[in-house]
């Protein structure tokens, strides 16, 4: 079989010289196509005598394999070159802004309500709710605030308009979340553990007051619940909520018509450098009111004070949000200024949990 070496040199040379896919395909057809030079020679093998075929067969097969491999290699090299050239051309200014994907936010009041829920749920408190418009019985009488009592006047109550001929005492916008105590007791009886976060309303508007704000009420009723347990619950709450280990609370006698004994609760803090730090320093900050549920209130809720006793507390949600997150102005909570909402708000998936921590 002569000329094989020349064929080999020629085709390998042409393959190496092929500048693009089309030229390479032409070489492939010329060599290995149906009428290609190598194919034709292989077809002639059948007419050879066995001895000659024994020699020529492997040689031709070897040449075919070699050319095919060269074709594959060249094809890959050409494709690489094309891709390389394309990639060189495909330049973008990656410093251009990304496609906008506006993120929303959760209001601090909602976030703090979820924090409260996470903490108190762990201590067995459910979340109770009640209406914003209340009867004066639920808001006052049931809570041991009789009509004409000075405490009733101090509430700066909003009254609903009574239509002509309707002589019932006017309904009120609830001035505190305490009426939810009554509703929860009437609905569920004792024993009972609930918190009741929500909107409350007072006719007051100045630098530090808004006519609507938020409170959370806490109520625990059982056979032998004591004020010492109230203190523990509040200590645990403050430690978890403010995320400070060394929280110190101070109980101070006070008066609320619906609790007896009653205590204002102060938390140890420092205002050094104008910044509030909970759990250190020599100042005391009033954070909530509390006490043992007044027998009158238990009776109003259909609970027998001879059998049951318990504690209740109430605090301002907006206020503890301000303290925890350093938010300066209560009024801004309700102004819906987008800049404020984004700055003080929380991400959609930033759900407060006890295992993950309440805040990031």
């Amino acid at each position, binding site marked *: 079989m002569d000329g094989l070496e020349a064929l080999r040199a020629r085709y390998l040379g042409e393959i190496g010289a092929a500048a693009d896919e089309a030229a390479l395909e032409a070489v492939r057809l010329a060599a290995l196509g149906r009428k290609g030079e190598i194919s034709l020679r292989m077809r002639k093998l059948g007419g050879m005598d066995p001895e000659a075929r024994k020699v020529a067969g492997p040689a031709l097969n070897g040449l075919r394999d070699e050319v095919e491999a060269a074709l594959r290699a060249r094809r890959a090299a050409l494709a690489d070159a094309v891709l390389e050239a394309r990639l060189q051309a495909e330049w973008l200014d990656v410093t*251009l*802004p990304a*496609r906008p*994907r*506006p*993120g*929303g*936010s*959760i209001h601090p009041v*909602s976030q703090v309500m*979820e924090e409260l*829920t996470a903490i108190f*749920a*762990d*201590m067995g408190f459910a979340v109770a709710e009640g209406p914003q*418009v209340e*009867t004066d019985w639920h808001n006052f009488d049931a809570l041991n605030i009789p009509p*004409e*009592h*000075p*405490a009733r006047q101090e509430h700066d109550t*909003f*009254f*609903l*308009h009574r239509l002509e001929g309707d002589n019932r005492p*006017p*309904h009120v916008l609830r001035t505190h979340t305490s009426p939810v105590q009554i509703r929860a007791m009437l609905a569920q009886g004792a024993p009972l*553990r609930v918190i009741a976060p929500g*909107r409350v*309303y007072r006719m*007051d508007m100045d630098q530090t007051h808004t*006519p*609507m704000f938020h409170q959370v009420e806490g109520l625990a009723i059982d056979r*032998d619940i*004591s*004020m*010492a347990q109230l*203190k*523990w*619950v*509040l200590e645990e709450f403050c430690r978890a909520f403010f995320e400070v280990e060394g929280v110190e609370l*101070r*109980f*101070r006698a006070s*008066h609320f018509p619906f609790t*007896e*004994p*009653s*205590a204002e609760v102060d938390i140890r803090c420092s205002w050094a450098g104008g910044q509030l730090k909970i759990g250190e320093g020599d100042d005391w900050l009033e954070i909530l009111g509390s006490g*043992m549920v*007044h027998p009158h209130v238990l009776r109003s809720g259909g609970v027998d004070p001879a059998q049951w*006793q318990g504690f209740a507390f109430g605090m301002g949600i907006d206020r503890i949000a301000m303290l925890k997150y350093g938010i300066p102005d209560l009024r801004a909570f309700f*102004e*819906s*200024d*987008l800049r404020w*909402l984004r700055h003080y*708000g929380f991400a*959609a*998936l930033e759900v407060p949990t006890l295992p993950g921590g309440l805040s990031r």
Partner: protein
Amino acid sequence: MKFTLSWLKDHLDTSADAATVAAALTDLGLEVEEVADPVGRLGAFTIARVIEAVPHPNADRLRLCRVATWPAGPGGPMEEVQVVCGAPNARTGMVGIFAPPGTRIPGTGVDLRPGMIRGVASNGMLCSERELELSEDHDGIIELPGDAPLGARYIDWAGLNDPVIHIKVTPNRPDALGVRGIARDLAARGLGVLKPQPRAAPAGRFPCPVTVAIDPVLKARGCPLFAGRLVRGVTNGPSPVWLQRRLRAIGLRPISALVDITNFFTFDRNRPLHVFDAARIAGGLRIHPAAGGERLVALDGKTYALAPGMMLISDDAGPESLAGIMGGEASGVTAATTEVFIESAYWDPLTVAATGRALRIGSDARYRFERGVDPEDTVPGLEAATAMVLELCGGEASALAVDGAVPDNSRSYGFDSGRLKRLVGLDLPEAAQRATLAALGFRLVGDRAHPPSWRPDIQGEADLVEEVARIASLAGLQGVPLPRPAPGVARPVLTAAQRREGMARRTAAALGYSECVTYSFIDAAAAALFGGGAGACRLDNPISSEMTHLRPDLLPGLLRAAARNQARGFADLALFEVGPAFSGGEPGEETAMVAGLRVGAAGPRDPHGSRRAVDVFDARADAEAVLAAAGAPARLQVGRAAQGWWHPGRAGTLALGPRVLAAFGELHPRVLAALDVRGPAVAFTLWPAAIPAPRSRTIARPALRLSDYQTVERDFAFVLDARVEAAAVVTAAQGADKALIAEVRVFDEFAGARAEAQLGAGRKSLAITVRLEPRDRTLTEAEIEAVSARVVDKVARATGGVLRA
């Protein structure tokens, strides 16, 4: 309630300083608001002598004084200071009060600095009484006696070094509205010993010429006891300095000896009194309910018209005083008064409160009577006041004129020393508990405790525990763990509705909305735009005209918020709120709502051309996403929203049969204009409570059924009347083979002028893709053709649509 430390010491034998007293009061429940120590305000003012006063070289009305001062105090070295003074009485040799530069002058609030006055240096000030807030006198500088100690602090010499303590008194503690009651609390705490209060009993020299009579209607309730006596031959000049100083220290203006005496007893022992000029009383005094329509000019100079039932004190000529609230001007005492009738009565708290509130009069008397004064102190208080009148104003007293009697408020409660431990968690021996109650004036007989007459707030056994705990102090209470209701891992507590609301909130935020909390009350006009504004939702006493009505919907608040943000330059917004909306003014006539509002473009301008105006389909996508997160089923019927605040052609509802779960759409341009919002603006509102609860809570998922056979998609384009809704086409197509057709989806709409040019007036084209999902074998071409033919047929029958050529 304000008092001074020395006033307290009239009643309490103690060596405690103001800070110790204040700390104890706060702990006892008499929260201290402020301790005003006059040293801070007046401590820099010292007694100085004018060495020489000469006329100012450049000003006729000013004088140039060389003043001798002793900066290190009396006995220290003298330092001469030059002061320019405008007072006419500044003269050589006088002794006055000097303030060095750096002093804040209380009367003007100005910080004193060295300066040049008309070209002459002035390095301090000689002060007037007004500048020190001692009186209103500003005619000249203060002149002290020649023997006043030079260099000493003025407050020490003048006896003004008396801290003023201001406490907040809770409504249950009327006894703490008198210095005596405060002293009693402190004594019970162990901060001193309560001094005895000797009972004055000035003799009556003549029968009282003014008779008193309580109308029988009021004797049972209203005015159980009315006492008085006349003092004749009095001189009503200024009260003595000690009394004036005390009243001024607590913020009262001294008026005359008689008036100052009544004010003194009001604050000293919570015993409000009234003094009449007896010469101006015609006949006797009658305590009676007003008939209605009477008019009275009170001591505040205002005329009050009385309603029937208000309590009045009248003489033969007519009304003279508003019982327990304020005296009348006509019978008030003046400097010319020589005969005074001193009134001391016990008025019913509720009646006084109701009248005071109706007439809008706030007075120290009303404040005290409505909280409850000590009924048993009615006559002793009158006697003490009479003694002071005799002492300060002279004259002789009549016998008492009394009608009625001290009401019987006696009661007792079981005292159980174990309750303190059970209820509070404090350990205190029984003897100590009994001693505390006794110190507070309780009478203990066996295991019954009788509260004192000055404590109307004590109404049960729990009050006894409170008193003992309060005096023992709650500060040392140690926390005791509250076990979980059931041992082990904490149980979930949220209701389905609460979880639903939380998911809706977090989903809305994830969709790009910022959560707002807006007021539950809005203005009438905004409420009316959203179907509200009814009388039942109106507040009787709104705080402003912007907050008069309970909101019928959350959108007005969000739209107002959007307008405010637009005014600040934010044109593109997405705001949402979760909260109550009101359908009426009864409790429970409220529904939790979730509302979202998008205004402007879906994003800022960017180089990728992604900015576009928000439209109704953004709102619908958001509504569907929030509904899904809140647990609504996937397949909802889309209807048209009819309420007036939506664009009539571009708003819809998502419903389950008759139950509407959500509305979405473009807001009506008129609503936007009324609320100053620049559009486009789209919104959704949804009612989480309308979402049906799952019938049973199954935690395991239904089995996943996948088909192994190839799914087939076929596209169809129909030419239809332009007002045929896509939903009709989809429903019809689905009906072609309910088993085989897994999904029908609209993927193109060709409508508008260009479409009509091609397809004919009032026509449009709608393209759908139908996905076939065989369950048991691969479909043949003939089967696919058969289903396709049925789709075309169904759509044609239902909508009149024909396959587009």
